[in-house]
């Protein structure tokens, strides 16, 4: 998760934080966008982290030579 913190923070900053700082209207459409733009990256980050951890913990003997 920590390894993917930079892509996650960059993504959330540009897609959610910058529009808010620019004064984007926080209406239903924006909240719907924000909900998807926050939830999906968190799920993807979690999934990729689990896969990356599983790969790095694989015993050396299991790695094809």
């Amino acid at each position, binding site marked *: 998760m920590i*390894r*993917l913190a*930079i*892509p996650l923070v*960059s*993504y959330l*900053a*540009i*897609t959610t934080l*910058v529009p808010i700082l620019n004064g984007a209207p926080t209406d239903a459409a924006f909240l*719907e*966008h924000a909900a*998807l*733009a926050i939830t*999906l*990256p968190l799920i*993807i*980050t979690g999934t*990729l982290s689990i896969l*990356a951890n599983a790969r790095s913990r694989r015993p050396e003997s299991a790695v094809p030579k």
Partner: protein
Amino acid sequence: MSAERAMTRQGIHSGVVIVAMLGVTYGLKRHYSTANPEALQWILAPTAWLVEAVFGEPFLFEQHVGYVNEHLRFAIAPSCAGVNFMIIAICTAALGFVGQMRTLPGKLALLFTSVALAYVVTIAVNAARIVIALLLQAHPVSIAGLSSGQIHHAEGIVVYFTSLCCLYLLADCLLARARTKAAP
């Protein structure tokens, strides 16, 4: 020079590059916020060309709209130019790897390479996103009661963010391998 001074100097150099990165991304964001389809040709044209090459359907440029295919009822408009993804990719590459470059020229080269690679990657990923969107339009799916607009939006997030993470991990791996090889 003591190790501490060298580290301080490296920190200052990283700061300079991060400020330069913020300048580049701010300029890009500002250009994007006011640009019409004509001004965004630099990114829309190669994306439309790649979508045409993959999907086999022509997209014609229409003033004030973008690249349009009447038959598919699909427009590659400024809102789906992928400029925000390009900005995110530049920030991710620069912030993620600036600490791994030891000299100022190395750090500046990283920034220039990030901008160039982010442009190429944005065109490829955006074209893939559009092709998937066209396939979803042709073969609609139903996911958890989401509307077609919400599915299109979610598809964009999944394609963009997964690509960003995979490319970041790949670059991290390649840089680590290069460091191992360079080590005495």
